């Protein structure tokens, strides 16, 4: 059974109309893909002249073969339609109660950690892309963070992986920083696994951070949330012994990715590690999966997807000054496909200062 789309613990109730619509949208996000993906795979295999062709084709070759097929068009339409429906319905659910939700978001909970906002920060242009077609993006209005967070439970009905918290080495970390922490989903598990560590999160979005702060209260964890950029943090040199990033790097262009690596190297203590969890690079994927994942780029507003999947993280990390950097390929080729996912992230990069 899919989990209830209320893991954030909102202070408002779902009406029958809201609940049933979001239940339907949640099912629409998962079930048609489950039904149609195997048929798409079978169609591709039937269209190949020889099985060996799949080894030599490019994603463009496959696009020529498949893009005009009714099946593919329906699958793409259904995925985009259900994504748009999700945002529309979440807006309709939350906006009538915006005063109640705003009061809730603005509560200060000292026992849950600090919430340090920076109203003077300059947010880079790329951040206003409007990722995943969320109206207004992550920063559009005071409810954007809640919309994103509740949207996660709808889009990932089988549960979120908890980021890299269960994959980092077992050490006594004094201070941990989660870059691009969003609403705290990837940050909270660090406090569970390392209760004696001081845990921090940083993100440019005030609405997301306010959501994270309220979630910390509900989960009875103490996490310090800072508004800021991963490429230019307010922290001193050598401050953290563990810095992490979960599905952040595919949301930034190459220039920002490099800046983030350099900044992380500055704020890590000697011997400290950066652990990145993200999507598999194209070098580890088949051309077919690259073609299939194209949906994210064009239809789900993921403009830096291809940047990230063709990025040479090893070279970039060395140039940023890390003593060593390694990558681990853990998952099946298509993270967003309907194949069985590995627990945790499919691609891990570990860099040591």
């Amino acid at each position, binding site marked *: 059974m899919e989990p209830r789309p209320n893991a954030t613990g909102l202070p408002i*109730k779902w009406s*029958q109309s809201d609940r*049933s619509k979001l239940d339907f949208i949640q099912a629409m996000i998962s079930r048609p893909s489950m039904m149609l993906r195997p048929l798409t795979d079978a169609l591709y295999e039937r269209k190949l002249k020889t099985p060996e062709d799949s080894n030599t084709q490019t994603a463009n070759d496959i*696009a020529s073969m498949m893009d005009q097929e*009714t099946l593919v068009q329906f699958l793409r339409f259904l995925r985009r339609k259900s994504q748009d429906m999700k945002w529309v319905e979440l807006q309709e659910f939350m906006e009538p109660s915006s005063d109640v939700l705003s009061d809730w978001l603005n509560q200060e909970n000292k026992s849950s950690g600090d919430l340090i906002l920076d109203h003077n920060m300059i947010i880079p242009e790329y951040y206003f892309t409007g990722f995943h077609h969320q109206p207004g*993006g992550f920063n559009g209005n005071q409810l954007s963070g809640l919309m994103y967070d509740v949207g996660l439970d709808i889009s990932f009905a089988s549960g979120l992986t908890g980021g890299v918290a269960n994959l980092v080495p077992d050490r006594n970390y004094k201070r941990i920083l989660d870059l691009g922490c969003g609403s705290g989903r990837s940050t909270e598990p660090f406090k569970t696994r390392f209760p004696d560590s001081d845990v921090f999160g940083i993100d440019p979005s005030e609405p997301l951070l306010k959501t994270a702060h309220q979630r910390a209260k509900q989960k009875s964890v103490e996490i310090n949330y800072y508004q800021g950029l991963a490429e230019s943090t307010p922290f001193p040199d050598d401050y953290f012994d563990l810095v992490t990033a979960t599905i952040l790097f595919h949301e930034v262009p190459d220039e920002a990715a490099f800046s983030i690596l350099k900044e992380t190297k500055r704020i890590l203590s000697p011997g400290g590690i950066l652990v990145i969890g993200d999507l598999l690079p194209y070098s580890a994927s088949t051309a077919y999966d690259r073609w299939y994942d194209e949906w994210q780029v064009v239809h789900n507003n993921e403009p830096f997807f*291809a940047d990230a999947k063709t990025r040479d993280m090893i070279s970039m990390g060395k140039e940023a000054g890390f003593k060593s950097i390694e990558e681990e390929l853990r998952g099946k080729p298509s993270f967003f496909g309907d194949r069985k996912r590995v627990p945790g992230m499919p691609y891990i990069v570990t860099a040591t200062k």
Partner: protein
Amino acid sequence: MVKFEDKERAEGWGVIGNWEKYFNDPALDRLAEITIDLATETWTAMDRQKITEWILESKGYLQPNEVDDFQPTQEQEALLTEQRNQFISQIFQGLLRNTKESAE
């Protein structure tokens, strides 16, 4: 059609709400949207009917807003989920038929 050159950005990047067309005939996009919107409303009505039946079976009468405010138990949610999944499988049968022909 998206062209895959390394680092080349696909047309439509960064444009919020860039709904081009998914089918060869743009009228089909509109028709498909109407169909899915109808299916959503149909499910909402089915859910509402089920809740109404449950309340009437247990008490024999309805209070104002009782259906709107109803919060299903875990067991009831499981029943609704099963019914919803059957509904979706049913409405997509036609698509599966067509796509099996396409796959052949």
